[in-house]
């Protein structure tokens, strides 16, 4: 217990880094995921193919490899960096890049399930009254699709928050990094440290689950 209290500032700073990373990745994943689902249900075969290819590759690659590719491939070998002289900034954006590339595929597949809940007749009707594909997606299909999958999107967000624990391979230090530091210096008192950090992650994830569950009930599309 004393290890947790002594290092309280470092733990809070670690979790703040986790929140910053998860929030930015969540927003960008939602945007990219929406774009991907538009590709996957679009009437143009080439676009559908591109969307499917991206989702298939990224969704089936372990996250650690995606992040390691960001750090050692993009940053270290190709020398494409956000700002190599500011490692905290550079690592943050490399981690966001990796997490977004990975999580957006899950957002896309979740949203695609939502699109499938919208009756086909609505898409046909919106095309019949002269809306373009983009307009029918924006005004008819996606609003209903989002409302149908709020709870599953919450699960994706929870998974994202927990997935931040491996971003150290992309060169960004967050709560799990602080935990490993503490374990190294703890000289054997590991259990309290583990429990403390598990509780910390639950403080972040439990409200997400409750909130999205509540929103899903309130905003469900009644048919």
């Amino acid at each position, binding site marked *: 217990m004393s290890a947790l209290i002594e290092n309280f500032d470092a733990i809070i700073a670690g979790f703040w880094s986790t929140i910053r990373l998860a929030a930015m990745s969540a927003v960008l994943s939602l945007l990219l995921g929406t774009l991907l689902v538009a590709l996957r249900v679009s009437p143009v075969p080439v676009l559908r193919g591109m969307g499917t290819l991206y989702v298939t590759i990224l969704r089936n690659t372990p996250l650690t490899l995606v992040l390691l590719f960001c750090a050692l491939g993009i940053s*270290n070998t190709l020398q494409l960096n956000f700002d190599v002289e500011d*490692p905290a900034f550079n690592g943050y954006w490399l981690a966001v890049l990796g997490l977004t590339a990975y999580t957006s595929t899950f957002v896309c597949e979740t949203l695609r399930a939502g699109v499938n809940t919208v009756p086909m007749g609505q898409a046909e009707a919106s095309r019949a009254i002269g809306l373009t594909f983009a307009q029918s997606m924006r005004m008819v299909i996606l609003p209903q699709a989002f409302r149908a999958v709020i709870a599953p999107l919450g699960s994706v967000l929870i998974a994202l928050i927990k997935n931040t624990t491996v971003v150290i391979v992309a060169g960004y230090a967050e709560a799990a990094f602080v935990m490993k*530091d503490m374990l190294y210096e703890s000289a054997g008192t590991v259990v309290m440290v583990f429990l403390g950090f598990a509780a910390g992650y639950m403080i972040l994830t439990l409200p997400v689950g409750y909130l999205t569950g509540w929103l899903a009930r309130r905003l469900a599309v009644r048919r």
Partner: protein
Amino acid sequence: MRRIVLALAALALGSTALTACGGDAGGSDSLVDKAKNDKKLTVGVKIDQPGLGVKKPDGTMEGFDVDVARYIAEKLGVPESGITWKETISANREPFIQQGQVDFVVATYSILDERKEKVTFAGPYIVAHQDIMVRSDESSVTKVEDLKDKLICQASGSNSYKRITDPAPDGQGIKAKLVPAGSYSECVAKLKGGTLDAVTTDDLILAGFAAQNPSDYKILGTPFTDEKYGVGMKKGDTASCEAVNDAIAEMYKDGTAAQLLKKWFGQTQGLQLPTEAPAFEGCA
């Protein structure tokens, strides 16, 4: 919610009970007795530390620490075939010794006062020094002070970077920029690629990595700490500790130590190797 609290409480209780019985289990059998009677020992080593303790793909072990452990075991009367290797990571060395999961540990295990409260240390069998490794064509870093505003590696689960960035007396108070990385292997990959300028930790660990590509890296040879690597064993096992100390002294006297040091670290640019046994800490 209540169920969650209950589950957490059960977990906490379980773990304290576990460590509690770990503490008083065994105890009667000292290391020397066990070696003499069973001709079998379980030894804790690192399995991912190049040059010190590595598990090869075929399952055999190699490295300086591994060879030291083999030598000690042999002096205690246990042949190579009687040794069971067990991985110990930095965070679980004390619990493994206390619970008797390993008989002794040779795993870049620095002798520290807070660790002495939990385990008994024989040795040190070698004194490593924190040092700095740079690319071999690097000319702007020649001493610790040059690390100001340079990119240095902050490896996960290691506190070596604090000896540079923390204010005195703990560290040097040098404002270097920290680049987080998952492990020292990643640090070395990033050093080679140029996303960081220097890696700093114990010179033997650095030498182990450098030995994989000796021409790419150099160690500055500006030691600024003493890390006394000891042999950890169950607290209070003084007789065994003395026996291990005798074995270590013997290892330096008969030339095995010099031979092993040359074998594992001889090629590294800039590393000074000791020639005689370090002063023992004492077993009491």
